[in-house]
């Protein structure tokens, strides 16, 4: 990151602040990384979702700790203890619905955050490690959400846990032994529930740790921006505070309105009715479906007639993201200047929605066929379209600086002025 000279904030000259900073420069850190931190002046509202994701994590941790104070991780009492939270704990229903719907909100926010990275090429040099850390957070989130869904010990909790843990049995030779080890027994039972609770409590703090690394990596080169070109100088940037603190706060306000709508007026919409039935190992639900945010991956899993193949493809659909910075061979970051990529980007989004739909259907007939075609297109996007686009696409001319189009200069520099990536 181009280090700009900045005038320290006024509070830094306070004698107590100075005393502390001399020993532990925490105020200096806040001042440099949060207040004076230079951010591109042209970030649009798509850049709100990073801070929103961080806020979601905090909401989930706080509401989760209060739930844990009243929850009992035992197959005999888990369902009833959750009902007790809903019925008898003061504002228990509110905490529970915040946590339950908060998981969905967290995934919506993170999906938009990831898709923003796709569109504006935020994963390209020099932000590859930043991108990797994001994928690691996403994987940890999936594990955390999966284990959290098991805790209320409803029908979908139990059968979801059974189906997903059984995936590991696809591993040749040691598969079944691994599943038994994961379960702590010969079926999903009390030991499974206990360890899932322990891990569900642990994982968010691991996520928080990786989030810190993610922020660290972000602050080395600063945010990408809608134009996808590097900042040239101070005129291209603005201090984070007050410009982006207020913009993030506005985004938070809008987000909370959506969140509150679900919590107060439609708390069951994103869940499955079967999970209000206590877990019963003797009765299998008609359709076992995961939460909506896993449906695209569930569709990929079921697209392959072979169990091991399905599992590999499902994990591969996320693993492939690690290679994205190199699979995308174009040197231009932003889709704004990549007309052909833009087309494939929207196709990819459509494919993801189709996968989500297919994942919610019984794996048979046209839904299965559509799921398979969408799975092929999903992988083709990364393995065929993206590498080829870089070669065949003729990008539009890039502006010579961020400030130029923003300040209304309007003069597009010649393609020769293309930023070196």
């Amino acid at each position, binding site marked *: 990151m181009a280090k700009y000279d900045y005038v320290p904030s006024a509070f830094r000259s306070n004698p107590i602040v100075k005393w502390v900073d001399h020993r532990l420069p925490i105020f200096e850190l806040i001042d440099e990384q949060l207040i004076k931190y230079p951010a591109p002046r042209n970030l649009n509202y798509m850049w709100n979702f990073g801070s929103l994701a961080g806020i979601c994590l905090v909401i989930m941790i706080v509401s989760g700790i209060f739930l844990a104070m009243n929850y009992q991780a035992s197959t005999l009492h888990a369902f009833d203890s959750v*009902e007790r939270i809903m*019925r008898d704990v003061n504002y228990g229903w509110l905490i529970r619905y915040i946590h339950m719907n908060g998981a969905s909100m967290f995934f919506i926010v993170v999906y938009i955050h990831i898709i923003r990275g796709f569109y504006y090429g935020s994963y390209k040099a020099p932000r590859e490690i930043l991108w990797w850390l994001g994928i690691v957070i996403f994987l940890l989130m999936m594990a955390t959400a999966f284990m959290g869904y098991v805790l209320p010990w409803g029908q979908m909790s139990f059968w979801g846990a059974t189906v997903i843990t059984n995936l590991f049995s696809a591993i040749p030779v040691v598969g079944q032994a691994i599943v038994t080890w994961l379960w702590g027994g010969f079926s999903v039972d009390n030991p499974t529930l206990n360890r899932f609770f322990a891990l569900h409590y642990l994982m968010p703090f691991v996520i928080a740790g990786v989030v810190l690394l993610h922020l660290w990596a972000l602050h080395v080169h600063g945010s990408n921006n809608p134009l996808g070109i590097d900042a040239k100088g101070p005129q291209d940037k603005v201090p984070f505070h007050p410009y982006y603190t207020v913009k993030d*706060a506005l985004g938070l306000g809008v987000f909370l*309105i959506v969140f509150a709508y679900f919590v107060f007026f439609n*708390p069951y919409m994103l869940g499955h009715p*079967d999970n209000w039935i206590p877990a019963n190992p003797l009765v299998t639900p*008609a359709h076992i479906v995961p939460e909506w945010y896993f449906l695209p991956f569930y569709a990929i899993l079921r697209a392959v007639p072979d169990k091991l193949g399905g599992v590999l493809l499902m994990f591969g659909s996320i693993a492939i993201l690690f290679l994205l910075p190199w699979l995308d061979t174009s040197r231009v970051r932003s889709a704004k200047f990549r007309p052909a990529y833009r087309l494939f980007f*929207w196709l990819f989004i459509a494919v993801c929605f*189709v996968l989500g*739909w297919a994942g919610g259907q019984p794996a048979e007939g046209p839904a299965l066929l559509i799921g398979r075609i969408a799975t092929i297109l999903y992988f083709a996007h990364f393995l065929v379209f993206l590498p080829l686009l870089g070669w065949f696409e003729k990008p539009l001319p890039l502006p010579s600086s961020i400030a130029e189009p923003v300040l209304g200069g309007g003069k597009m520099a010649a393609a020769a002025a293309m930023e070196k990536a």
Partner: protein
Amino acid sequence: MRFVKFLAVAAVLAVSSAPAMAAEVLVPPKQKWAHDGFFGTFDRASLQRGFQVYKEVCSACHAMKQMRYRNLAGIGLSEAEIAAIAAEYETTDGPNDEGEMFQRPSRASDRFKSPFANELAARAVNNGAYPLDLSLIAKNRVGGENYVYALMTGYADPPADMKIADGMNYNKWFPGHQIAMAQPIQPDGVQYADGTPATVEQMSKDVATFLAFAASPHLEARNSLGVKVMLFLFIFTGLLYATKRKIWKNLH
């Protein structure tokens, strides 16, 4: 470009209408409820009639383990009325000083008395079928209370080409259309204290309202707090919008 965007939107719409398309899931028609909407509150008279239907009809076979007698305050009963209802049922307590379990009249803090000791006992007298616990039925069925209403009013003669197994009954809204429970709600099956005519539709609607309350006893608190939170958030976000505009004005 436009076309692909259109595809994306079409895909979103297809996904959002997916539940309606899922093959075997019957979605019961939506009824009008007093507790619908942002300002919805339960119809107290209907709740009390519905509780009467549960007490006099359903509770012969169906437990409601999540409910305690004190929860009846939520349907508008007084403490004395609740105590009187609770006292009608015996609860097993103990052990006492001699180490014996004993029976005593229920208190407001006790759970609703279950009709059967356990699932096997219930199956033994119900032709092998298990009458479900109704505490959460309005949450754990697609359509919620609408399903309860549809099921209660859904008994009819089977289509000519359908063979109904012994001891089973045809119902339009039960998955598979064969249900072990015979039509539980008959015209004038209960005598309403407030003089409301006890038609099948009326009783079904009342008991569905009561079961909706049992599944979401906090619904009214949720709505009233929700409206306040929304009001606050709209004003708060409006102020943030104005602040953002003012701060960014210097930049543009």
